[in-house]
């Protein structure tokens, strides 16, 4: 992957250092072999005294020390490079994740996305901590060794030149497969993560349907799939190491034979030269072999990088925004349409919403009420037609300015893991005071409950927090709207889960809000609907009737039927 290499060479100082330290390491290897051979030669054949070889011993010690220091510095540089890239990549992923339009954010499994963020990025690590340092080292050290061997004994050098290319050739072939396999492995891990997280969320449901045990089998299957994918990659790695070892032992054997024959039969070289060559030959092949396994890990990282890139490159049409500021808005939907990816569509919506209007959206379930609110809220762009704010397309306005004017209590508000106060404060501008939060809670009719709790507003809720009843959750979310006094409020079935008595308490605060803002409510309950200035009656994504209650009662059969149903018997 070009990106990975680019990121490596962007870190110029570090790569330069790796080059320098590789040259030094090569020198140390040769030095170590030289001292070692000379010492053995000295005492074994030349019958030197211990005093004679002492300086050589000290030299060897120094070389070894330097070699260790270099290996530390090399490793450390690799780790640092990897960290820099991982930081960068995670930031890019995060940016992409938070910029995603809402639709693509909801598609796919969360666990899988978490896995890309965690596991795939971590997998990139070894490209920098192992592969790059090794590539640099292997592009230098074997050449240095070769040069020395050629100088000392040409024929061994020639054997090296002839045999060496087999090694890279071989691992290139193997590496090809690795990349695809490692993508597969990460896919399996993502699938496992996705399945596990989804199962975790639905564990109660699964238990109630007696499926927890069945699901265990699925989890086990995902888990085994991941194991198998991992093993496939490892097997490739092991087989390739095995092959490389065969090639290198064979080559070293050839060299040994050649050197041995010359030494014993032809007596054409000195023992020290022969020994020197024989000590250097394994280092030569080792370096190539290590590149082999580093190459393997590197290819694995490339697979991971590809996953990350796929995630980053997925082009999404983000909702368009401009820079204009928003004042108290009037909103107009002019023949606006919207379609989910070849699914449900809102067609040709026409509506005018003057400032401070009280609007209700009604319709059967699935008729597109929530979708319409999303469209008005600016979570979607219309595919055709326009959403006009004060006569200009909504896309002219700045996103922040727009959302500063707007509160949207969605149908399934999410409670974040945090205190009650935090959860309410999220609805307002930064730095809402505790008094404001308490006031908002009071208006939402939830303050009595909160006060009854031991830690009051500091009680943790959401995941890893205290559980709440359905209606209580709803009211916490409502408090978010009361905290901010926006000029447009969108409520999606704000009173589901609430009894009439609690709802009546709320009604008052809502009426108060409505004095200074446009309120658009999706509702099923008649009393909410009746008070609206205007009702949009949706059916299958189209507005089939609109107007105030009394008018609709006269003009729309379907509307009348719905109203009668509420007053009449249900069961």
């Amino acid at each position, binding site marked *: 992957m070009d990106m990975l290499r680019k990121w490596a060479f962007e870190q110029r100082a570090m790569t330069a250092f790796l080059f320098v330290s590789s040259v030094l390491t090569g020198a140390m290897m040769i030095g170590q072999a030289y001292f070692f051979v000379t*010492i053995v030669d000295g005492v074994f054949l030349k019958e030197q*005294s211990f005093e004679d070889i002492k300086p050589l011993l000290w030299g060897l*010690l120094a070389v070894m020390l330097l070699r260790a220091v270099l290996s*530390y510095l090399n490793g450390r540089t690799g*780790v640092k490079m*990897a960290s820099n890239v991982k*930081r960068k990549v*995670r930031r890019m992923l*995060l940016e992409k*994740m*938070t*910029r995603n339009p809402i639709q693509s*954010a*909801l598609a*796919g499994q969360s666990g899988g996305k*978490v896995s890309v*963020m*965690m596991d795939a990025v971590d997998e990139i690590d070894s490209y920098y901590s192992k592969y790059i340092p090794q590539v640099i080292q292997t592009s230098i050290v074997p050449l240095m060794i070769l040069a020395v061997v050629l100088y000392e004994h040409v024929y061994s050098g020639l054997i090296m030149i002839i045999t060496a290319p087999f090694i890279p050739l071989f691992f290139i072939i193997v590496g090809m497969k690795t990349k695809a396999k490692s993508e597969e492995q990460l896919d399996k891990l993502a699938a496992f993560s996705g399945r*596990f*997280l989804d199962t*975790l*969320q*639905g*564990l*109660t449901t699964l238990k*109630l*349907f007696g499926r*927890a045990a069945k699901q265990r089998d699925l*989890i086990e299957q995902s*888990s085994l799939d991941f194991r198998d994918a991992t093993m496939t990659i490892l*097997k490739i790695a*092991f*087989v390739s*190491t095995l092959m490389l*070892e*065969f090639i290198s032992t064979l080559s070293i*054997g050839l060299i*040994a034979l050649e*050197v041995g024959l010359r*030494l*014993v*039969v032809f007596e054409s070289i000195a023992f020290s030269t022969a020994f020197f060559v*024989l000590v250097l030959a394994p280092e030569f092949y080792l370096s190539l072999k290590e590149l082999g396994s580093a190459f393997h890990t590197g290819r694995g990282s490339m697979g991971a990088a590809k996953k990350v890139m796929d995630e980053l490159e997925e082009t999404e049409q983000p909702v368009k925004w401009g820079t204009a500021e928003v004042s108290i808005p009037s909103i107009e939907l002019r023949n606006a349409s919207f379609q*989910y990816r070849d699914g449900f569509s809102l067609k040709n919506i026409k509506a005018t919403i003057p400032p401070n209007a009280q609007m209700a959206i009604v319709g059967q*379930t*699935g008729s597109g009420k929530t979708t319409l609110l999303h469209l008005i*809220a600016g979570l979607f762009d219309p595919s055709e037609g326009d959403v006009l704010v004060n006569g200009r397309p909504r896309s002219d306005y700045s996103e922040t300015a727009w*959302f*500063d004017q707007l509160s949207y209590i969605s149908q399934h508000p999410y409670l974040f893991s945090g205190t009650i106060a935090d959860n309410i404060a*999220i609805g307002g501008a930064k730095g809402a005071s505790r008094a404001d939060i308490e006031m908002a809670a009071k208006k939402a009719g939830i303050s009595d409950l909160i006060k009854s709790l031991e830690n009051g507003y500091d009680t943790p809720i959401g995941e890893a*927090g205290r559980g709440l009843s359905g209606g*209580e959750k709803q009211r916490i979310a409502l408090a978010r709207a009361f905290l901010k006094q926006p000029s447009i409020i969108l409520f999606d079935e704000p009173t589901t889960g609430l*009894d*009439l008595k*609690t709802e009546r308490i709320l009604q008052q605060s809502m009426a108060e809000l409505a004095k200074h803002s446009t309120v658009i409510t999706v509702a099923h309950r008649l009393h909410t609907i009746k008070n609206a200035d205007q009702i949009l009656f949706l059916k299958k994504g189209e507005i089939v009737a609109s107007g105030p209650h009394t008018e609709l009662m006269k003009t729309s059969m379907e509307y009348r039927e719905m109203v009668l149903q*509420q*007053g*009449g*018997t249900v*069961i």
Partner: protein
Amino acid sequence: MKDVMVVIKLMMAEKRDILYSILFGVLAGLTSVGLFAMSGYMISKSALAPPLYIITIMTATLKMFGVAKSISRYAERYFSHRATFTILSNLRVSFYEKLVPLAPGIFQKYRSGDLLARIVGDVESLQNFFLRVFYPPIVLVIVFLSTIFFTTYYSIYVALTLFAGLILTGFIVPALFALRQGKIDSQVREERGALSTDVTELLYGFRDLKIYQKLDGKEKQLGKSADLYVDGQEREGIHAVFNQSVNALVALMISWFVLALGAYLVTEGELAGLFLAMLVMISLTVFENATPMALFPAHLEESRHAAARLFSIVEGKSEEEGSSDQLSKEKAYSMEMDGVSYTFLGEKRLTLENIQLNIVAGSKTAIVGPSGSGKSTVLQLLLNMYLADQGDIRLDGSPIDSLAQESIWERTNVVLQENHFFFGTIRENLMIAKDGLTDQEMETALLNVRLDSFSLEDPVFEKGENLSGGEKQRMAIARAMLKGAHVWLLDEPTSSIDAVTEKQIYDQLFEAAKDDTLILVSHRLTGLETMDQIIVMEKGSVIESGTFDELMNKKGYFYEMKQIEKSVLL
């Protein structure tokens, strides 16, 4: 350490692979020492101009050693990794199994992203336990002792040096590092957990974060967590590189010492010069096995920590046993609560107080009351999801704690206030209801809840995010209807459904539940006239109960609520 024992126990299931790993590990270690010893010996021997055939034989043996070494190394890797990844796979499953009985209470203590980090990240990091902590020391000691034994034939001093080297690189240096290891590692695991948790929450709460324009802030915060995690890994990585370099240096020093000592002995005439190269080669090779020991403490610490993080969640609470009685399959059962009180964990206030309920088999009961009065909690107690603190609950006349939980769930059709839908298709989500459902049955169920516009292949996003609120509720009702049990517990099943559709669905539902016991929690009072019993709850107590007419005549709480409803309907 206790948690590590759990891992070891799981590991023992792979006994054979473990034995193979050790066996081939030793073989690989010995052959590679042999290989280098031979080559050192051979070259020295050649210098003394031996007959050609000796060289030929030695070269051939060398080849054999080489091949044997490569193959054993391959086998060792293969078996040890196969064992490891099988162990990890089993570990994940066993973690899940232990998690199941803890739901739903567990979610008040742990966040799902955190649990995900544990089952993926912590389990993954346990791979080092087997690969680096458990068996390599065994291999190391065997290879070393054999090598040392071999060298005693040539020089007892060299053998002693090697032994000292083993102690130094295998034990003392790692032990010193263990002291330094400190908490570096545990922090990384925690940081990983934090990042995974935050990313998960970002995804789950995306819509609200978007609406409240908190995404930028979240991005910054997550960026920081991510950096912290990478910083931790970096520290850990550099630490590892350092330890390894130091241990490698110590090993080199020992080989240097062997060389110096050997050279001295040769000059003193106590060792034949012929063997010097061989001994040094042996030393250089055998210590290659010891260098990785530098990471032993880090890996041990990491494994210990990961195991502890994994099992701290699930430990202790084994499933309640002993209750194995089954409810009858064919008929509706009765439900009674007698003086039941319940308090959620960590609450000071009673959630339910002295509840009396008598639900006759085959009857239809409605529970009404303000939000937070305990309606859902009553249903959960009847499902034995929580155990009452006081009082008796009897299903079909048997105390609830004598019944197997699964048997209760199997015999009830439940629609919760919030129902989960899985990533997949409509079919997959409906199939959960029962084994062996046909497409036909599922399509009929969809029709019954007016969802016939959907096909079974239609995709369902995670948490049913591509379904409208009412569609999700109807899907849940369809799923309950498919299950076909004879007791129904319905918790505000139609709160997001318009009145017209609601009526149609209730008609179907009550037809299907004609002879069954049914409890319905509802905020809509219209239509409750036909119920056999209405239970009114407030603040955790039952304040009224009776038929619609009885309650209206009583002019109590229910009557008052009914008046409110009337007033808003006018």
